[in-house]
C-alpha cells in the first residue's frame, strides 16, 4: 500500500514538473488511437472523410477524456486548493476567537525562533566575513599564571613565534586600548575603545578599506608619523560621514593623528566597542613590544593551506615549550594554544545562544502541539459533517488535504505576523547583547526568511497532520453511528488530545526547570558579597593622556588635586581612587618575590593581582582593614615603599607567619622591596569567581595613569555625578570621563548575561505554562461536553456530585501527571546541558525541581477545576434532554 503510494507520488511530482510534456503525451496518445482506428476504417473500405468521422464519433468526447486523464496525474488541482482555502477561511472567520489564538500563538513561536535563528546563524553558523575564514585561528599562551589555557601574549613571545613557526602564512597582533578623542567645535572630548594592530592584520583578513588605505609597514614603525583608521560607526557618528576625512588630523590623547582610511560597515570586530585602529609598533614603545613578560596582546593568524588546527597547535606548543625550557626565568607561558578564530570570538555567547535557541524551539513545539490540539477538538466537533462528506465520496486524502490547507492558512498568517515581530525582536536582542561579534550588522536576510518560511510550513503540516491523522476510516464510520444519543463521543480523539497535552506539559516542565535553575543562579550571583560597599557608590573612570601626564609627579599631582576637590564638593562624605574597581575584572597582575623566603625553583614565579589606591580608598569603598594600617598621604613617589595585601594573598604566601613588617618585591617595576603595612578584606574581580590574591600599592607612587574615582554620599550619590564631571572639566577641559556608573551598575553589567538568559528562558517557560493550562482546560471542557449525557445519567442514578467532580478531575489530571513525569526526566537531562551556565546551583537542585512540580500541579489543577466543577453541577434533566 505504502509502496504504491510512493510510486504514485513520484509519478505525479514528475508530471507536475513536466506539465507541458504530460499534456503533449496525452494528446499524442489519443491522436495515435484515432489515427489507428481511422486507418482500420479505411482498410475496411470507407472513404477517407467517412473513416475519420466514424472514428471521431466512436471516440466520444475526447476533450472530456483528456481532462479526466490529466486530472488523474495532478497532485491536487489548483481549483481544489482554492476551494479548500476559501472554505477554510470561511470557517475560521466564523470562529474568530479560535483563529486569533492560533495566529497569535504561532506568530509568537515563529517570531521568537526567527530572531534566535538570525543571531545564531550570523554569529555561530555563518563563516566570518573574511577571506578563507576556515584558516583563521587565534593564538594564545598557556599557563602563564595558574592553569589558564588562554592567556594574552607578550610582544616578545609574538616575535619569537613569528620567527620560528612554519605552519601559518600571516600572523598579526592586536592589542586592546582606549584613547581620549578631543572634541572639535562644540563637541565634548570622548573616550573611545581602540585596537592596536600590526600592518599585516587587515591584509591577512582580506579586508579592504571603504575610504583611503590601510596601514603600511612604514606606518607600523616607531619613527613613523601617527596614523589612524576609523571604523564605519565612528566615522558616521563622530565625523558625520565626512567624505573628505582621509588626510585630516584628529587629536587622540592630545596628540595629532592623520586619518588614512575608513573601514567598511560590516567590519565590527572583535566587538562593537572598538571604534578606531592604530598601528601597534608606532603606538607602543619598542622595549614594551620586545618584552617577554608584558602579556597584553591577542594574536590572530592565517594557517597555510592544508595545515590543520591540530598540526598548528602541535607546532606552536612545541615552540613555546622549547622557549620556556631555554629561558626558565622568563615570565612566559609553558605552552601555546591554537583555536579556530570563530570559536574563539563566540566563546562567551555560544552556550547562552544555544540555550535560548533550544528554548524558543520548545516554545514553537508547544505552540504547534497546542494548535494541533485545538484542531483535533475542532475536527471532533465536525466529525459528523466529515463522516457525511466521506460517505458521499470525499476521499480520505481529500479530507486530509483540506485539514492541511486550513492549518497552513492559519500558521501562514501566524508566520507572516511572526516575521514582522522578528524585526522588532532582533533589534531588542542586539541592544540587550552588545557583546555579539559583528553585532549591529546582524540582520534578517534571505536565509533567515527561508528558515522562517520553512518552520512556518513545518508547523502548519505538523499541526494539521495530527487532526487529519485522527480521521481514520473507523472513526469516520463511527462518526455516523455516534448520532445515537447515549454513546459517549470520540474517546479515541480525546486520547490523541491527551497525548498531545502530555507532551506539551513535559516540554513546559523542561523549560520551567531550565528557567528556574538559571533564575536561582542569577539570584545567587546577585547575592554574592563583593567584599566592599556596593550600595550608593558612584564611580567615574578616566585615563590621563601620556603627552601631558608622563611623569609620576604630574600624575600624582593631578590625582591628589582631584581627590582634594572632590572631597570638598558639598554632599561627598568620602572619595578614593583605584586603578581597577571590584567587579571590573582581573586586568593587571604582576609577578613578585618575597625576600627572605627560599628562592623558587627555576621556571616558577609568584603572581598576584595588582591594584593601586589612595590612602582613603579602602574607607571610601568600605573595604575592611584586618590588621596593620592603610597608606598615608606622606607615602608619595619614591617614599611610597609600602604595600597592602588582601587576606587571601596574606594566607597564600605567608601561611604560617605574620606578613606585617615583611617585604615583597614586585618584578615589573624597578623597585626596592616594599614593606607590608596592612591586610584588608578580599574583594572580587568578577562576581562569579572567588576573590583573587591581591596586592595594593600607593596611588601616589604615580605608576598608573588611569583608574576610577569612587564617591560616597549620605544622600543619593548619583546627584553628584554632574558637579564632579564639571569639576574634572575645569581641571582639564580635554580629559574625557569614560564611564559614570554606580557599583550596582558595574555588578549589573557582569551579571547581565545571567539575567538575560534567566529572564528570557523564564518568560518563555511562563508562556509555555499558560499554553499548557489553556490546553488542559480545553481538553477537559471538551470531555465534559462529550460526556454530558453520561454524567447526567450518573447523577440521575444517584452519583454524588463530589464523586463526579473527582472523576472528571482525575481524567484531566492524568495527562498532566504523565507529562510532569516525562518533563522531570527531560529536565534532569537538559539541566546537565546548561551546567556551564550555572553559578552556585547544582543542575539537580531539589528546590527548583520541587517548585516546578508543585507549580505545574497547581496550574493543572486550576485549569481542570472549573470544567470538573461544571460537570458536577450538571442538572441531570437538562443533561439528558440536550442533544
Amino acid at each position, binding site marked *: 500500500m505504502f509502496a*504504491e503510494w510512493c*510510486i504514485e507520488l513520484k509519478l505525479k511530482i514528475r508530471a507536475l514538473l513536466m506539465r507541458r510534456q504530460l499534456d503533449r*503525451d496525452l494528446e*499524442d496518445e489519443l491522436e*495515435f488511437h484515432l489515427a489507428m482506428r481511422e486507418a482500420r476504417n479505411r482498410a475496411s473500405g470507407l472513404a477517407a472523410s467517412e473513416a475519420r468521422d466514424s472514428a471521431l464519433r466512436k471516440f466520444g468526447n475526447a476533450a472530456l477524456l483528456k481532462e*479526466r*486523464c490529466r486530472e488523474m496525474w495532478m497532485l491536487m488541482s489548483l481549483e481544489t486548493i482554492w476551494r479548500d482555502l476559501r472554505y477554510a477561511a470561511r470557517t475560521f472567520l466564523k470562529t474568530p476567537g479560535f483563529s486569533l489564538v492560533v495566529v497569535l500563538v504561532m506568530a509568537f513561536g515563529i517570531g521568537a525562533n526567527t530572531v534566535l535563528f538570525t543571531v545564531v546563524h550570523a554569529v555561530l553558523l555563518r563563516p566570518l566575513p573574511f577571506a578563507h575564514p576556515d584558516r583563521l585561528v587565534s593564538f594564545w599562551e598557556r599557563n602563564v599564571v595558574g592553569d589558564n589555557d588562554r592567556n594574552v601574549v607578550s610582544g616578545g613571545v609574538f616575535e619569537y613565534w613569528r620567527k620560528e613557526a612554519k605552519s601559518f602564512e600571516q600572523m598579526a597582533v592586536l592589542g586592546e586600548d582606549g584613547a581620549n578623542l578631543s572634541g572639535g567645535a562644540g563637541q565634548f572630548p570622548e573616550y573611545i575603545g581602540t585596537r592596536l594592530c600590526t600592518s599585516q592584520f587587515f591584509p591577512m583578513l582580506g579586508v579592504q578599506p571603504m575610504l583611503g588605505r590601510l596601514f603600511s609597514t612604514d606606518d607600523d614603525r616607531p619613527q613613523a608619523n601617527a596614523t589612524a583608521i576609523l571604523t564605519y560607526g565612528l566615522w558616521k557618528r563622530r565625523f558625520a560621514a565626512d567624505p573628505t576625512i582621509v588626510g585630516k588630523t584628529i587629536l587622540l590623547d592630545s596628540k595629532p593623528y592623520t586619518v588614512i582610511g575608513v573601514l567598511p560597515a560590516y567590519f565590527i570586530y572583535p566587538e562593537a566597542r572598538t571604534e578606531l585602529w592604530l598601528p601597534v609598533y608606532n603606538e607602543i614603545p619598542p622595549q614594551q613590544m620586545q618584552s617577554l613578560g608584558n602579556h597584553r596582546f591577542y594574536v590572530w593568524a592565517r594557517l597555510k593551506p592544508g595545515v590543520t588546527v591540530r598540526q598548528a597547535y602541535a607546532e606552536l606548543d612545541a615552540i613555546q615549550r622549547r622557549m620556556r625550557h631555554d629561558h626558565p626565568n622568563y615570565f612566559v607561558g609553558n605552552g601555546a594554544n591554537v583555536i579556530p578564530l570563530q570559536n574563539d570570538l563566540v566563546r562567551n555567547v555560544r552556550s547562552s545562544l544555544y540555550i535560548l535557541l533550544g528554548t524558543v524551539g520548545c516554545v514553537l513545539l508547544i505552540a504547534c502541539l497546542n494548535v494541533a490540539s485545538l484542531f483535533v477538538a475542532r475536527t471532533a466537533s465536525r466529525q459528523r459533517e466529515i463522516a457525511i462528506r466521506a460517505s458521499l465520496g470525499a476521499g480520505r*486524502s481529500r479530507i486530509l488535504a483540506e485539514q492541511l490547507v486550513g492549518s497552513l492558512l492559519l500558521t501562514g498568517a501566524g508566520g507572516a505576523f511572526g516575521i514582522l515581530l522578528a524585526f522588532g525582536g532582533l533589534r531588542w536582542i542586539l541592544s540587550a547583547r552588545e557583546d555579539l561579534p559583528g553585532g549591529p550588522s546582524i540582520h534578517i536576510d534571505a536565509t533567515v526568511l527561508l528558515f522562517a518560511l520553512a518552520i512556518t510550513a513545518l508547523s502548519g503540516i505538523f499541526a494539521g497532520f495530527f487532526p487529519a491523522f485522527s480521521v481514520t476510516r473507523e472513526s469516520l464510520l463511527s462518526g455516523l453511528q455516534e448520532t445515537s444519543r447515549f454513546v459517549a463521543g470520540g474517546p479515541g480523539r480525546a486520547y490523541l488530545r491527551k497525548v498531545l497535552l502530555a507532551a506539551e506539559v513535559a516540554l513546559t516542565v523542561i523549560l520551567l526547570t531550565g528557567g528556574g535553575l538559571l533564575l536561582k543562579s542569577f539570584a545567587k550571583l546577585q547575592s554574592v558579597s563583593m567584599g566592599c560597599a556596593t550600595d550608593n557608590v558612584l564611580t567615574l573612570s578616566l585615563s590621563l593622556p601620556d603627552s601631558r601626564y608622563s611623569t609620576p609627579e604630574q600624575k600624582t599631582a593631578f590625582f591628589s588635586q582631584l581627590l582634594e576637590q572632590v572631597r570638598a564638593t558639598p554632599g561627598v562624605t568620602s572619595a578614593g581612587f583605584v586603578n581597577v574597581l571590584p567587579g571590573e575584572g582581573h586586568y593587571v597582575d604582576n609577578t613578585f618575590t618575597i625576600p627572605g623566603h627560599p628562592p623558587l625553583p627555576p621556571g616558577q614565579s609568584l603572581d598576584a593581582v595588582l591594584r593601586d589606591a589612595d590612602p582613603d580608598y579602602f574607607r571610601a569603598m568600605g573595604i575592611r582593614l584586618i590588621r596593620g594600617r592603610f597608606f598615608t598621604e606622606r607615602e608619595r613617589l619614591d617614599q611610597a615603599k609600602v604595600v597592602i595585601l588582601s587576606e587571601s594573598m596574606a594566607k597564600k604566601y605567608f601561611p604560617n607567619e605574620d606578613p606585617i613588617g615583611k617585604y615583597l618585591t614586585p618584578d615589573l617595576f624597578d623597585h626596592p622591596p616594599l614593606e607590608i603595612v596592612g591586610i584588608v578584606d578580599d574583594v572580587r574581580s568578577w562576581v562569579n569567581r572567588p576573590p583573587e590574591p591581591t596586592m595594593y600599592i600607593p596611588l601616589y607612587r604615580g605608576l598608573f595613569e588611569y583608574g576610577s574615582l569612587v564617591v560616597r554620599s549620605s544622600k543619593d550619590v548619583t546627584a553628584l555625578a554632574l558637579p564632579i564631571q564639571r569639576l574634572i572639566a575645569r581641571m582639564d577641559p580635554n580629559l574625557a570621563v569614560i564611564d559614570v556608573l554606580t557599583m550596582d551598575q558595574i555588578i549589573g553589567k557582569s551579571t547581565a548575561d545571567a539575567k538575560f538568559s534567566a529572564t528570557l528562558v523564564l518568560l518563555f517557560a511562563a508562556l509555555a505554562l499558560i499554553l499548557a493550562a489553556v490546553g488542559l482546560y480545553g481538553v477537559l471542557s471538551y470531555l465534559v461536553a462529550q460526556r454530558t449525557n453520561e454524567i447526567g445519567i450518573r447523577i440521575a442514578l444517584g452519583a454524588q456530585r463530589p464523586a463526579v467532580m473527582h472523576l472528571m478531575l482525575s481524567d484531566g489530571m492524568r495527562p498532566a501527571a504523565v507529562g510532569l513525569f516525562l518533563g522531570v526526566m527531560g529536565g534532569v537531562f537538559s539541566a546537565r546541558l546548561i551546567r556551564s551556565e550555572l553559578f552556585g546551583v547544582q543542575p539537580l537542585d531539589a528546590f527548583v525541581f520541587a517548585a516546578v512540580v508543585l507549580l505545574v500541579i497547581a496550574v493543572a489543577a486550576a485549569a481542570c477545576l472549573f470544567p470538573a466543577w461544571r460537570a458536577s453541577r450538571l442538572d441531570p434533566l437538562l443533561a439528558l434532554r440536550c442533544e
Partner: protein
Amino acid sequence: MRYSPKILMVLRDHKPEPGDLLRDTLDMLILKTLTRGSLHGYAIAEYIQDTTQDVLRVEEGALYPALHRLELRGLLASEWGTSENNRRAKYYRLTSAGRRQLAEETAHWTRMSAAIARILEPA
C-alpha cells in the same frame, strides 16, 4: 467491529461509479493482455475485442483512464516507442507488481465465477 470490503470500497480514493465491478474486470483484462508483451492502447482494445469475438468492446473513454490509473498504481510501466506504421506511440508493459496483482485477481475471479456457476447450474 469489522466491515465488509464492499463498504470500504466506498471510502477508497476514487469516485464510485456505476459498474465498478466491470471496471475491476477491465483492469484485470488489461493486465492479462499485457502478459503477451508491451502494447499500445489501441492494440490492447483490439486484442480484447478480437479475442472475445466482439463480445467485450472496450470504450476509449474507459480504456485510457484505466491505463493511467494502473500506471499510477505502479502496476504498469510505460515508454514511448514507434508503432508498426511508424508513428509515436505509448507502449505499456506489466511491472512485477502488476503481475502479482493479476495473479491475485485471476484467482479471485476464478473463485467467484465458480461460485456463481454453482448457483446458476443446479446439480
